[in-house]
């Protein structure tokens, strides 16, 4: 029986990392969840590319950050911040697809 990520995570957010990159943070509720997600590679390039509807090559990094029990996913911004057609200058509301992660 698959469970939703909200059981394991207490923060799921997105934000610009400079005007040309977008970064997502998932902060887990406990070290156990962090270790489980990390060791099972539940969050990986293929899954993120599928959820965000982007090419795998646009995922710049997935970094597991133990001091915060967190994983950080950084992608090439769909367009530079403020470019024609922009919808989210700060990039702070692009996290919703990650709420569908199951484990």
């Amino acid at each position, binding site marked *: 029986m698959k469970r939703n990520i909200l059981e394991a995570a207490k*923060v799921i957010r997105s*934000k*610009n*990392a*400079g*005007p*040309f*990159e977008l*970064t997502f*943070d998932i*902060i887990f509720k406990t070290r156990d969840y962090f270790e489980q997600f990390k060791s099972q590679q539940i969050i990986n390039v293929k899954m993120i590319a599928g*959820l*965000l*509807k*982007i090419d795998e090559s646009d995922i*710049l*990094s997935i*970094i597991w*950050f133990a*001091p*915060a*029990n*967190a994983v*950080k996913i*950084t992608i*090439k*911004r*769909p367009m*530079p*911040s*403020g*470019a*024609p*057609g*922009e*919808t*989210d*200058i*700060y990039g702070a*509301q*692009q996290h*919703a*697809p990650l709420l*569908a992660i199951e484990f």
Partner: protein
Amino acid sequence: MTNNEEFRVLSPTAILGYGFPESSFKRGIERQPHLIAVDAGSTDPGPYYLGAGKAFTDRAFVKRDLRYMLKAGVANNIPVVIGTAGGSGASVHLQWCRQIIHEIAREDKLSFKMGVIPSDINKDAVKKALTEGRISPLACVHELTENLIDETTYVVAQIGIEPIIEALEAGCNVVLTGRCYDPAVFAALPVMKGYDEGLALHMGKILECAAIASTPGSGADCALGILKKDSFILEALNPKRKFTCESAAAHTLYEKSDPYHLPGPGGAINLEDCSFTDIGDGRVEVKGSRFEKTPRYWIKLEGARPIGYRSISIAGTRDPIMIAGIDTILAEVQQQLNEMSGDNDGSQKLFFHVYGKNGVMGPLEPLLQTSSHELCIVIEALCPTQEQADTLCSVARSTLLHYGYEGRISTAGNLAFPFSPSDIKMGQVFEFSIYHLMDPAGEKLFFTSIESFRNGQKF
């Protein structure tokens, strides 16, 4: 330096002009800080503010925040360092903030010596660096060209701690800088006094957002950093907040692409061996942060260039038939407009932001069907001139208002406008044109000009 020595830094607010409670600031001053420092800027609000030379914070509140800082700094002989003046840190922003400081000095009859450090980079110097292969784009950034440099309104560099140290060594009580690496305003003075650069910069990285890194977080409240020989301690100055290991570590992730390596002028903070320890009373102690110099001293350049003018119109629809067919309707309206303005060479762009459907995520929105009973449509026209943008916005609005879409039964008008006039001129539009590293090849680029005030009068 002995193990007992410490250097206390008061960070009043996340961005100058965001405000802070007077009570928190007073508590901070009671802790007898050795430095009051604030970061005043960011690229987050987008390319307009740098490109147009405008502040993104409110003048009245910038003045309010500065008055507290300057009065307390002068009265208690605490240096005050302000980075990225005016939000984007170009010369025009720097002058804007400098004028506010002059006003406060006059009104409160303050005596101090101020160092002002512009961080604009001459375009010819950038072109020369480009020719000589001393320019490198950051990740995901286009290659720089001479044309892009020419079209950029202001080119600024993020300065590091060195120019600030120079100003402080010259005896300045107040230092105001152009674009500045956020942590540098907090780290310059302690590094000058012999404290570890890695710890000082990491502390600055957290203090630049003030109480955002505490819990519950706030961008409009003060925080205190206590730098020691081998660690630093974070302390909230409002009894409602505290620092926890989680809040401090989580903040280390914020707005960065790699939490272990935080690059800045001349090097990076390495956090691979960093530890966060709860030491009680809402305080967290951080150890193990190291500064690692890069072989070349790179500085980051930023600039934006004008790309046209924008007009928008805001409207809503409550019609279920229109909502069901909205994608087709907007595509057909777009098509009709293209046909009407036959001379469009692609320079006139029209966007529909459809809130309630995919206004926030655009083409990346995973939900294809909206379940909303009403939609907000923002019509955006982006054209080479304001007149063209006004025309395109107006015609798009009138065409959509009366468009006879398939199955329409509400034949009196398709849009609900909350405002008259319905169309808004948004003025000039910019895009980031420079976001590149430059190696100054050893050339000194940043100089302090000093001005002194006695009882508010320049002398």
